[in-house]
C-alpha cells in the first residue's frame, strides 16, 4: 500500500499519521504495481479514477469488467476486478452477454478510440440502441497507440500519424468521428459525457462524470458512456508536457467537453428523442 503522507508534522514522535492527515492513498481497487504505460499516457489516470469511483460506490466486489484490445488490454493487471478480454471492438457485445446472464453484476467496458470508434462501431451503436445497462469508459487519444501510432477515426484533421504522414486530410481520410454525440441521440443512452485528463481541474470533472455513469447503470439500468480525452505522447511525437498542452489547447475544438446528455436529469435534450 502506497501512502503519501502530509509530513508537515514529521517531527511528531509517532510514526503513524493521524487519519485526518492522510491526503493520498492508493485506492483498494488499484494494484500496487507499476504500469506498462508510456510516460505521459493518460490510461493510468483513468484507471485510478475508476478505482476511486468503484471503491466509493462499493461496486468492486460485483463488477465484471471487459478489457479491450489495445494498450489498455492490461487493465486487469492494474484494476483489482474480475475481467474478461474482448476481441478488438467487441467489448460492448461481450458486456451485453455478461449483463444478460448476471443481472446483479456491475458491468463495465473499457475501450480505446480505435477499438470503439472504428472496428467496434456496430457493437457500441447497438449496445447503446438496446439501452444495455452497462457503463462504457471510452478513452480517446486520437491514435492507435499499441500498433505504433497510426490514424484512428478520431485523429484530428491535419494530425500527422504513421499512416497519415502528411497530416490527416478529409479528402482521402475523412473527418474525425464524434461518436459520443452520435450515441447521445439514441433514446437508450441514459448518459453521455466527454471529459479529459489534461489538467487537475478536468480530472476532477471527469471523475464526477464517471461516477454519474456508474450510478446511472445501478439506479436506472441504463446505458452510460464517458469519453475521456487522453494523451499518447509517443504516438503524437511529443513530450508528455507538450502532449498535455495539446490536449488542453487543441483537442477540445474538435471534441467539446461536457455532459452531452443526461436523460435522468434532463429527459428531453434538444438534440435527441425523448426516452
Amino acid at each position: 500500500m502506497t501512502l503519501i503522507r502530509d509530513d508537515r508534522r514529521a517531527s511528531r514522535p509517532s510514526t503513524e499519521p493521524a487519519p485526518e492527515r492522510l491526503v493520498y492513498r492508493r485506492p483498494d481497487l488499484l494494484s500496487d504495481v507499476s504500469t506498462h504505460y508510456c510516460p505521459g499516457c493518460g490510461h493510468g489516470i483513468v484507471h485510478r479514477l475508476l478505482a476511486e469511483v468503484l471503491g466509493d460506490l462499493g461496486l468492486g466486489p460485483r463488477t465484471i469488467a471487459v478489457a479491450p484490445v489495445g494498450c489498455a488490454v492490461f487493465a486487469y493487471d492494474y484494476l483489482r476486478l474480475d475481467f474478461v478480454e474482448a476481441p478488438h471492438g467487441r467489448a460492448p457485445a461481450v458486456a451485453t452477454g455478461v449483463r444478460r446472464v448476471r443481472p446483479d453484476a456491475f458491468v463495465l467496458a473499457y475501450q480505446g478510440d480505435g477499438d470503439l470508434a472504428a472496428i467496434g462501431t456496430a457493437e457500441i451503436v447497438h449496445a447503446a440502441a438496446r439501452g444495455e445497462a452497462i457503463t462504457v469508459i471510452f478513452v480517446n487519444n486520437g491514435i492507435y497507440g499499441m500498433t505504433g501510432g497510426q490514424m484512428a477515426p478520431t485523429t484530428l484533421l491535419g494530425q500527422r500519424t504513421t499512416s497519415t504522414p502528411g497530416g490527416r486530410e478529409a479528402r482521402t481520410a475523412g473527418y474525425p468521428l464524434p461518436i459520443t454525440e452520435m450515441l447521445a441521440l439514441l433514446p437508450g443512452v441514459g448518459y453521455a459525457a466527454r471529459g479529459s485528463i489534461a489538467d487537475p481541474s478536468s480530472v476532477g470533472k471527469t471523475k464526477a462524470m464517471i461516477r454519474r455513469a456508474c450510478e446511472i447503470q445501478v439506479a436506472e439500468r441504463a446505458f452510460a458512456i464517458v469519453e475521456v480525452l487522453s494523451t499518447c505522447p509517443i504516438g503524437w511525437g511529443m513530450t508528455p508536457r507538450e502532449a498535455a498542452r495539446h490536449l488542453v489547447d487543441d483537442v477540445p475544438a474538435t471534441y467539446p467537453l461536457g455532459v452531452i446528455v443526461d436523460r435522468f436529469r434532463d429527459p428531453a435534450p434538444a438534440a435527441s428523442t425523448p426516452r
Partner: protein
Amino acid sequence: MMTAPTLPDERVLMKGNEAIAEAAIQAGCDAYFGYPITPQAELLEWMARRMPELGRAFVQAESELGAITMALGASAAGARVLASSSSPGMSLMAEAMSYMAGSELPVLVVNVMRGGPGLGSIGPAQSDYFQATKGHGHGDYRVPVLAPSSIAEAIALVADGFDLAERYRTPVILLADGILGQAMEPVDPHFRSLPPRHDDWSLSGADGRPPRVVRSLHLRPEDLEVHNDHLGAKYREIAAHEVRWVGERLDDAEIAVVAYGTAARVARTAIARARDAGLAVGLVRPISLWPFPSAVLARLAARLRALVVVELSAGQMVEDVRLAVEGQAPVFFHGRTGGMVPAPDEVLGVIRRAWAITADREVTP
C-alpha cells in the same frame, strides 16, 4: 389388479431447427444469441419465444460478430450458452471462436450449413467441413464437431455438446445442414436435461476472493507456448476419448461408404439397393468429425476392397478419409454442391464403379 395402461406413441413431429432449440432449452441453456439467416432462422425464432417465457437470456444481435461475442461474455460469466448460424454467419463467428478456444470458454454453436462459397445458396450443403474441423479461426486450436444425421440424433447431440463443452472448457460445433434444419421428423419429446453449469473460474465479481481474468492474451512467447501446450494436451485427451461413429452392415462388407449427416441417409438407401443387387456394402457414419474416427477407418481399410465417400461438398471429409486409410485401399468420392443433394442411384452408380474397378483386389471380410 390393474396393469399399467399402455402409453400411446408420444412422439411429436418437430422441425429440426426447432427441435435443436428446444433440446438446448431442456438441457439447461441459460442464454441464446443469434442473428437471422436462412436456413436456421426458426431456431432463433423458437428461442425468441421460449427463452423470455422461462426468464432466460435471448438477444437478437446486430451481427454474427455481435452474437458470438455476446456468447463469449455470457460464457465467461458462467452461463450455459447456445449460438447458432448458417455458413456465411459462421465465417463472421470465426473470430470469437478462436478467442473462446484460447480463453477455454464452453459454448455450443450450431451451424445449419448452406451452399457456398460467398452468399452461395440457401440449399443444404456440407461445404463447411474444413471450416468446422480445421480450426475455423486463427491460431493453433481444435473444436469438437458433432454431426447429426437425424433430428432425433440432433436433439441428443445438443445435450452431449453442452456436456463436452463444459467438461473440456471448449467451444463445440453442432454441424447440421439445411435439410436437417428444415425437415420435420417424429421425435420423443422427453429431452435430456443437464445439471446447472458449475465451475471455479468464471466471473461473478471479485467478492471475497481474488479477481479472476478470462483471457487469451499471453504476450510473452514463453507463456503462450505453455498455454498452447496445455491446449494441445486437452485436444489429445478429446481425441483419445470422444470419437463417435456408427457402422452399419460392415460385418461382411467389401466396400464401405463413408458419409455423415444428410449424405449418410442418402448413402443408406444406396447401400440397401446395392445389397439387393448382391454387393456387400456397409456404412461408416462419423458422428464426431473432429475427433475423426481415423483409427476405425484405418482398421477397416486393411480388409476392404474400396471406400466410397459421399458428401454434399466438392470433397472435404474425403481428405481425412484418405489420410486415415493411408493408401491401404482405393478411396472413391462422390459429391454434389451448391445445395444439390445426390440421389441414391447416383451413389449406387459410384458403388458399382468402385466394385468393378476393384474386382481383382484381394479382400478378407
